[in-house]
C-alpha cells in the first residue's frame, strides 16, 4: 500500500492551558509507515502531542493535517478508519470478553446499524491471532494479566485497520519482559502492515530498540529528532538528560544503551 498520502503534517500546531504553553507551535511531518517514539521528561508535552494528533484535543493555534485534509474535516468514523488511539490508562471493560472488545474495533467500518460482514469477522479473527490471544477469546478482559490486557487493546486497534496506531505509554504498567514483548509486537506490526505508529515511551533505551525515529520533547518544544543511531550519542542526549548521561555503543546483538554516570 502507498501511504505517503496519509502523513501527519503539523503546521504551527500548539496547545496551551490558560497562559501556560503546553506545546509550542510545532512544524513537522510524520511519515505514515514508520515507528516514531516520543520521549521526554514528565510535563514535556508528549502526551498532549499525541492527543492532538489523535484528535482527542484540538490545537489552539495552527493546523494538523492527515495527508492533505485538516483533521477537523474528518467525520468520527472516517477518522477512526485512519487513526486508532490507545490511552495510557485503558478503561475498565465491565465484563466484556476479549472477542467482544476486539470486535468493537470494527465500529469504524460497520457503524451503529450496519451488519457485521465476513470481512469484519475476518479482521477480528486475524487481530486475535496476531496478538496471540486465541486462547483468551472468551475470557473477560478485566481478568487478564497486565500484558495480556495490553495485547487485547492492541488487537482491538488492529481490528480497526487504521493507517495509524497512536499509543500513550503502552508499556508503563508492565515489567521489563512484557515491555519488550509489547514493543516488539508493535514494531513487527509496523513492518508487516505498513502502518504508521507514534508511541509515547518513557525509556530512551526501549525507544532506541524499536523505533525508526525518535522525537524528544522538552517543555513543549521539539529538541531532538533522528534515527536511533543518531540520537544514541552522549553529546546529543546531554541537552535532554543533563551532563551525566553517557552511552554504551551498540555491540553485536546488544543495542546502544544510555545510562546516567
Amino acid at each position, binding site marked *: 500500500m502507498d501511504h505517503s498520502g496519509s502523513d501527519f503534517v503539523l503546521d504551527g500546531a500548539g496547545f496551551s492551558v490558560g497562559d501556560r504553553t503546553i506545546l509550542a507551535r510545532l512544524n513537522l511531518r510524520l511519515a505514515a509507515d514508520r515507528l516514531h517514539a516520543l520521549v521526554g521528561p514528565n510535563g514535556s508535552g508528549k502526551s498532549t502531542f499525541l492527543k492532538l494528533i489523535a484528535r482527542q484535543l484540538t490545537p489552539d493555534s495552527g493546523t494538523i493535517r492527515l495527508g492533505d485534509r485538516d483533521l477537523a474535516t474528518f467525520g468520527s468514523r472516517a477518522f477512526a478508519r485512519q487513526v486508532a488511539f490507545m490511552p495510557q490508562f485503558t478503561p475498565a471493560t*465491565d*465484563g466484556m470478553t476479549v472477542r467482544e472488545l476486539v470486535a468493537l474495533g470494527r465500529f469504524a467500518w460497520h457503524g451503529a446499524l450496519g451488519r457485521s460482514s465476513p470481512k469484519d469477522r475476518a479482521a477480528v479473527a486475524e487481530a486475535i491471532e496476531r496478538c496471540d490471544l486465541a486462547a483468551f477469546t472468551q475470557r473477560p478482559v478485566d481478568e487478564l494479566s497486565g500484558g495480556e490486557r495490553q495485547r487485547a487493546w492492541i488487537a482491538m486497534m488492529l481490528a480497526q485497520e487504521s493507517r495509524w496506531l497512536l499509543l500513550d505509554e503502552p508499556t508503563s504498567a508492565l515489567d521489563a519482559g512484557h515491555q519488550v514483548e509489547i514493543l516488539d509486537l508493535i514494531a513487527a506490526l509496523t513492518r508487516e502492515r505498513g502502518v504508521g505508529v507514534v508511541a509515547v515511551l518513557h525509556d530512551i533505551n526501549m525507544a532506541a530498540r524499536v523505533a525508526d525515529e525518535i522525537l524528544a520533547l522538552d517543555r513543549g518544544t521539539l529538541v531532538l529528532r533522528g534515527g536511533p543511531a543518531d540520537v544514541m550519542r552522549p553529546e546529543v542526549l546531554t541537552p535532554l538528560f543533563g551532563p551525566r548521561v553517557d552511552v554504551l555503543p551498540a555491540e553485536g546483538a546488544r543495542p546502544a544503551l544510555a545510562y546516567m554516570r
Partner: protein
Amino acid sequence: MKAFPGFWWLVIAVVAVAALALINHLMLLDAVSNEAAGNMAFAAVFVARAELPRLAMALVAGAALGLASALMQRVLRNPLAEPATLGLSAGAQLAMVAATVALPAAMAYPAAVAFVGAAAAAALVLVATARRRFEPLSVILTGMMVSLTATAGAAAVILASGDYMTGLFIWGGGDLTQDGWAPTLRLTAILATTIGGTVLALRPLALLTLGDAEAKAAGLAAGTLRFAIIALAVWLAAATTAEIGIVGFIGLAAPFIARLTGVRSSAGRLMAAPIAGALLLALADGGVQLAGHLTGLRIPTGAATALIGGPLILALVPRIVSLTRPDVLPSAAVLPRRSAGPVLVTLTIILVATIALALTAGRGAEGWHVDLATITWRSARVGLLASAGALIGLAGTVIQRLTGNPMASPEVLGVGVGAGAGLAVILLAVPVASLGAQAGGMLAGALMTLFALLAFVRRHGFGAERLLIAGIALGALLSSLLTSVIATGSPAGFLLLGWISGALIEPSPDFAVATAAILAGLTPLALLHARALAILPLGETAARSLGLATARTRADLVLIAGAATAASTVAIGPMSFIGLIAPHLARSLGLRRPLSHLAGAMLAGAALTIAADWLARMVAFPYQLPLGLFAALIGGGYLVIRFAGGARGGP
C-alpha cells in the same frame, strides 16, 4: 492593610449581614407601627427574643453546616460532600417526622432522633459505596437516592397522619424563625464540642488529604480517624437539621468560598469554612426576611439557599477536575456469565406471574382471595404499571451505560422533579386542573428540564461526569422550589405532597394505552443504539478513538432516557430506585450485552413496579400506601444487601 487572606471579603460580608438585619428590623417596625405605634417595649422584646436569636441561629447553624461539610469533604476526599448531598438531612428529617407521629415521647430529644436518622443515611451511603472506595461521584449519586427516598417517606408519613402535619414539611424546608435563645444555645454547645474535636484532629486530618495508603504509611489509623470524624460531622449535621430543618448548599458553598479567599493551609481552610458558612447563611436568611417583608410571602430559607446553591454547583462543574478515580476496581469479575436466553425467559415468566398475581389476588373483608373477576377493572392499572416500569428500566440502563457509572439512575436527569415542578405550576395556576391538564403540565416540566440540561451540558462537551452533576444540581434546585410550594400549605401543596410520596391515582384505560404506545415507540430507538451502548461504558477517549460521535450519540441517548423517564413519571409519579435497581438486577443475572441488558432491565423494571404496587395495596389493607414509598423500600433493601455483601467479598 492586609491582615490575612480574604480579610476584606470578611469585612464586606459582616457589614452586609448587619445592614440586612437593620433594614429588616426597620421594616418590621414599620409594619407593626400602625397597631403599636411608638411602643418601644414591644420593639425591645421583639429584638431580644426573635430577631437577635434568629440572627445568632443563622450564624451558628451556618458555621455548623460549614464545619460538618468541610470535615466530610476532607475525610471522603469529595468536593461535593455535605449534609444535603449525602442524604443526612433527609434521613434526619424522616426520623423526626416518623418519631413525631409514632413515638412523640422521643421528640423530647430532637437532636438524638435526628442523629439516628442521619447516621442511618450515612451508613447506607457509605456501605453502598465502600466497594467503589467512596468514589466521590458514586457517593453523591447514592446520597441523592437516599435523600429522595427519605423525602418520599417523610411525605408519606405526613400524608398518612392528616393535613395538620404539613407544618412538619414547612420545617423541612428550612425555617430559622426563633422565639427564644434555647435552640441557638443547644446548637452552639454542640458546635463548640465539634470545633474542639476538630482542633485535636488537625494534624491527622492534614495527612488524610494525601489518601489512605499514604496516611497509613505515615503511621495513621486512617479507618478509625475517618469513622470518628464522620460520626462527629453527622452529629453536627443532625443537630443542625433538628433545629432548623433542611438547609442545603451552605455546606457545599462554605468550604469552596474558604478556598477562594486564598487560605492555603489545611487547618486554615477547615477553620475558614465555618466562618464562611455562618456569614453565608446569615446573608441568605436576611435576604429571605427582606423578600418576605417586600412581598408578604413566607419563603423557607432552605429554598432560598438552594436557589443560590444550584447555580453554584452548575458554575463549579467546569472547574471540577475529576470525581471519578481510575483506581476504582471494576466489579465485573465476580459477576456470573450466563447465556442471555434462559435468563430472559425466566424474567419473562416472573413478570407474567407477577401480572397474574396483581390482576387476581387480593385481600377483601373476609381475608385473602383469588378472583378472576377483578381482572377487568385492574387491567388498566397493571398495564400502566408494566409499561411505566419497563420505561424506567430502559431509562436506567441507558443512563448507566451512557455514563459508564453503575450507580447512576434516571433521577440524575432531574426530569422527574421537573415533572413535579410542571405539576406545581399547573396546580398553582388552575387549582381545579383536570387530570389531563396535570399530565400536560408534568410533561412540559419534564421536557423543559431535559432541554435545559442538554443545553447546559452541550456547552461543556457532554462528559459523563458533568452530565451527572448538572442533572443532580438541576434536580436539587427544582425540588427546593417544590418544597417552597408545599410549604405554602395550600391545597396545591397537599396534592404535590401526594405526588412526591408516589401515591398512584386510579388510571383510565386510555392513559395505560398512551403509556404503552410511548414504550413501543422508545424501545426500538434504544435498541438501535445497541452498539453505542456497548462502546460508551469504555469512556470518552476510547469511544472517540473507535469512531463514535460521542457528543451527538450522548445527546440522542439522553433524549431517549429523558423521554422514557418523563413518560413514566407522568404515569405513576417519581419512582426512586427502580431505575437504579432494574439494570443492576439484569447485570448481576449475567446479562452483559446491551440488547439483553436492556431487555432484562425492562422486564425487571415492570415486574418490580407491579410488585411494589401490589404490596402497597395489600400491606395495610384496606388503606393504600404510596407506591413510590414501596418501590423505594424494595430498592433500598436490595441496594443494602447487594452492596454490603459486595463490600465484604470485594477487593
